[in-house]
């Protein structure tokens, strides 16, 4: 397994991550999950990151603080504390100042990063180019936005439906997304006075809805859908050959639980296709799915048991997906705000002695307290009634 160890970087005092086929990071806001994922990208794709930054005219003069400001975003140079901060990747120490000093250029990337701020990638319903952002905006956001622009312009340049599309995604996914995200509306390219834009509209009909009147969930989901399109090309080869890793931050943003369950199933599709996927999440539903996956595997449940959780049809393609997903390794890490360290909570055992694991890194804490309050109220009321 690949390992990443980060010490004394930003809020992180000691993060030790061993990646599975699917790795999930949980923890309160601002505990270093995003920094860890961006450092993972840097470890995997330093040459491509530096090549892209240079291509767009960003110059950090070989200095690590300047490099961190253009890569992680303005003001982020402070996360690295010279002499105290350190990174190990795959068991080897990485000299980050030296990495920043050596300008490398590589075209190909191995890690596809879908940032939490993906909603910013669309403006007025069209993906923004890299140069549309401020130099102080994080690289992950700018790069994702640029990728979507290229995808939409090259592959969907002509007017027509982007969703649903027969050769994009399995039919079962299209049906689930139509039902739970798009409410039977189609996503298509439209033109207003020569300006192309993405709109939602009824099948073959008039009355297109521009970006600003989409629901918040649809605005969040469309940039994510385009990312899935990019990762699952409509070719015989079901993956982008050069991509090994996929990072997806906060997949649940703006989505109803039913839509979240489709996205989690899409994640399992990515894993089944052979991508190594890393997520960060604040959604207990994601951990519910991981927890169930583990127990279904341990108890030799059939693939349809997994599909049932997602309300997915029990068709052969979906059974193959579920069977493959159930064979994969899953790791879950908790980023602890108090200690700044990570804990491996992959067992997700609700009866674990450690609060981090039993409470799923705080994600089931609120439910636990609600249960406690209700149980006490009921038992007290019982006694009052008896008197």
């Amino acid at each position, binding site marked *: 397994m690949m390992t990443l160890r980060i010490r004394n970087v930003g809020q992180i005092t000691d993060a030790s991550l061993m990646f599975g086929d699917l790795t999930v990071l949980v923890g309160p806001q601002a505990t270093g999950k995003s920094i860890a994922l961006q450092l993972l990208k840097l470890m995997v794709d330093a040459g491509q990151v530096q090549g892209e930054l240079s291509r767009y005219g960003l110059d950090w003069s070989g200095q690590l603080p300047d490099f961190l400001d253009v890569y992680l975003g303005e003001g982020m140079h402070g996360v690295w504390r010279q002499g105290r901060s350190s990174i190990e990747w795959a068991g080897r120490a990485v000299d980050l100042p030296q990495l920043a000093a050596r300008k490398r250029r590589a075209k190909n990337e191995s890690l596809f990063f879908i940032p939490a701020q993906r909603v910013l990638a669309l403006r007025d319903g069209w993906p923004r180019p890299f140069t549309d952002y401020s130099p102080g905006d994080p690289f992950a956001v700018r790069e994702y936005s640029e990728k979507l622009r290229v995808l939409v312009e090259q592959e969907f340049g002509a007017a027509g439906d982007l969703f649903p599309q027969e050769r994009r995604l399995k039919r079962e996914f299209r049906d689930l997304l139509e039902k739970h995200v798009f409410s039977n509306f189609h996503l298509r390219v439209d033109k207003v006075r020569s300006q192309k834009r993405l709109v939602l509209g009824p099948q073959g009909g008039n009355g297109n809805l521009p970006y600003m009147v989409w629901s918040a969930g649809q605005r969040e989901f469309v940039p994510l859908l385009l990312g899935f399109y990019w990762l699952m090309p409509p070719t015989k080869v079901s993956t982008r050959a050069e991509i090994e890793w996929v990072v997806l931050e906060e997949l649940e943003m703006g989505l109803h639980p039913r839509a979240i369950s489709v996205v989690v199933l899409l994640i399992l599709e990515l894993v089944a296709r052979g991508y190594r996927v890393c997520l960060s999440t604040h959604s*207990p539903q994601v951990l*519910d799915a991981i*927890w169930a996956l583990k*127990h279904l595997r341990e108890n030799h449940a059939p693939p349809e048991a997994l599909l049932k959780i997602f309300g997915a049809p029990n068709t052969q393609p979906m059974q193959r997906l579920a069977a493959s997903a159930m064979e994969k390794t899953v790791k879950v890490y908790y980023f602890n705000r108090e200690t700044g360290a990570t804990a491996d909570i992959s067992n997700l*055992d*609700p*009866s*674990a*002695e450690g609060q981090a694991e*039993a*409470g*799923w890194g705080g994600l*089931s*804490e609120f*439910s*636990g307290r*609600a*249960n*406690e*309050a*209700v*149980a*006490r109220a*009921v*038992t*007290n009321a*019982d*006694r009052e009634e*008896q008197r």
Partner: protein
Amino acid sequence: MTFKEAVGLTPNLETAWKDGLGALEAKDRHHIKAEDTRQLRGSADVDTALRLRDPNANRWDFAIGYQHTNRNAEFIYWVETHTGRENQIKDVLKKLEWLKTWLRRDGQHLDKLDRDIIWVSSGHTFFTKGSAQVKMLAQRGLLYSGAVLRIPNERTW
């Protein structure tokens, strides 16, 4: 009235009171973590004490007395240790009904003390804290604690 006095005045439980967690079998004791063991006010093995009287009933396991530092009266934790499997829910609910009936019938003194009724998992747990099963139990007044019951020194409610 103290927990010890209430146990002593309860039919069939007169001699059941033990110091600390003494009424619990060793295998059950590690499921209970009191913040300050000096605040424990004893325990009673209800299941064993009522075996002759209600041999075929789904009897509750035990009671633990605790003095929270911010409360005047002692507090009772009614604890059932049972595997956390879905197919055990019916059994545990039967035990809960037995406990409530028994408290009404014979346990008036114990019933006067504030309480929590807790299911502590004795093995792996197969439902989560946010699950519908745990919410259903809570609605019946039964709190599912997972493998460990932590008793804090102070409790506000």
